[in-house]
């Protein structure tokens, strides 16, 4: 039979009142793989991520996670089964501190039912939070209100909130966009090394080819809603179509 895949899409399609944003997407991801998703603006990368994590319902096609059909599930159900994501525009709680953000994420991941009526300020969780904050190098900012942070810090917080539940698959939508050039590699180093340690499967959308080359096992290139290339970086970045439609001339 076929090889075991952690995530698999079959003929995935999405259209918005006539506009096709994703067409015939067949992708298989093995456990532990680190995949870079590239493509020009509007190529359908975010739509792809949104469909996998349940924000958008595919018009047709199938998404499977560990052999189970998860097409059209809700975002929170995706989170429960371990498919988590970060966002192109950081979705964090702007009015709260970094620590509070993470504490809420943590308590939702670790507690359920009536336990949620216990005080948020739990010593054990607090320690675990500090560990993650340390790992993602935002511990010094623990007590700052998020709206005062830099874009890069917010991205890190966004990602750290996505990993508190130890996801199986993590989708990162442009983790380095809006981040200064100096911060970029720092962030990716932090994130990828943390995720490699836990063996998480990662798909991340990225525009910077240097980063793609350095971190990924495989590249998937999008153009006008279709996958035009699916290969290791050394090959993909030399592909004619990729050069023409993604990298530009």
């Amino acid at each position, binding site marked *: 039979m076929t090889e075991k895949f952690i995530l698999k899409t079959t003929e995935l399609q999405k259209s918005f009142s006539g506009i096709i944003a994703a067409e015939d997407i067949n992708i298989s991801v093995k456990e532990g793989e680190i995949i870079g998703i590239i493509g020009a603006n509007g190529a359908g990368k975010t739509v792809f991520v949104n469909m996998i*994590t349940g924000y958008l319902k595919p018009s047709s096609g199938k998404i499977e996670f560990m052999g189970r059909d998860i097409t059209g599930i809700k*975002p929170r159900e995706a989170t429960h089964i371990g498919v988590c994501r970060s966002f192109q525009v950081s979705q964090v*709680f*702007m009015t709260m501190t970094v620590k*509070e953000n993470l504490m809420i994420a943590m*308590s939702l991941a670790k507690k359920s039912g009536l336990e949620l009526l216990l005080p*948020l300020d739990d010593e054990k969780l607090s320690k675990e939070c500090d560990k993650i904050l340390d790992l993602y190098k935002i511990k010094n900012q623990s007590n700052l209100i998020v709206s005062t942070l830099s874009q890069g810090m917010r991205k890190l917080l966004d990602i750290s*909130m996505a990993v508190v*539940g130890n996801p199986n698959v993590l989708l990162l939508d442009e983790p380095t966009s809006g981040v200064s050039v100096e911060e970029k590699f720092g962030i990716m180093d932090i994130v990828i090394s943390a995720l490699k340690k836990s063996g998480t499967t990662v798909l991340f959308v990225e525009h910077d080819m240097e980063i793609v080359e350095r971190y990924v096992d495989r590249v998937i290139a999008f153009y006008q809603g279709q996958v035009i290339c699916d290969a290791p970086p050394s090959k993909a970045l030399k592909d004619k179509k990729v050069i023409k439609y993604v990298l530009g001339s």
Partner: protein
Amino acid sequence: MYYGFGAYAVAMCQKYFGMTDIFLRFFIAVAAAGLLGFALGFILRRYREIFFAMLSLAFSMVLYGLLAKAEFLGSTDGMSISPSTILGYELGRFGLLYFICFFVICAIVFAQAYLRSSLGHLTTAISDNEIRVEYLGYSVEKAIHIKYVISACLAGGAGGLMAASLGQVDPDSMVLWSVSGELVFVTIMSGLGNILAPFMGAVLFEFIRTYAFELAPQAWQMIIGGTLLAIIFFSPGGLWSFFQKLNFLRKKNND
């Protein structure tokens, strides 16, 4: 609305079951309002902001219409309520006051615990960013529903106690939207974030209203409206944040 519903629950239990015990009254009021909140919550939890407000308003107007029309509940005249008892003994004015204080303290303790809990924090998180909350794996609608039932219970309890202490329930002073408006006003005036704040706010509101009415019967609404604007402008966090600022300044001066 839940305030009025709690009050009417007390009145009905007295009429049909002769129930006057203060504990039972409080309980019935809380439970009745909680149940209504639970039921309506299934509908309301899908709505946000203005739509939430308008639908709540619609529900409360429907309830008002029903109560004002219901002959067996005294229509627009309402019903009178006999004095409360405890274990068969009648409570005097002061006895009632003690019990009300007791219930208020219970409510404060409960509300404080809720606000400190993960769920309590979650409601702030939801008003900040719903998408993220969903992606953290918790149903936004469920959290809103729970919170809604809790507030309904609190309001119902308050209505029940009000009915017991006034000795009277009627649709105009219990269910009409202006009552809810007053409560919202008190909340804004006091500011969010501390349980004691609404208490001070309520006292101050009654104070302003009484004096405004005496000083300028023609313009008391204007005074209230002006106060509201002034608070929104100069101390959007309400009186509470005003006090905090004062405290802060004083500390600074002492240093």
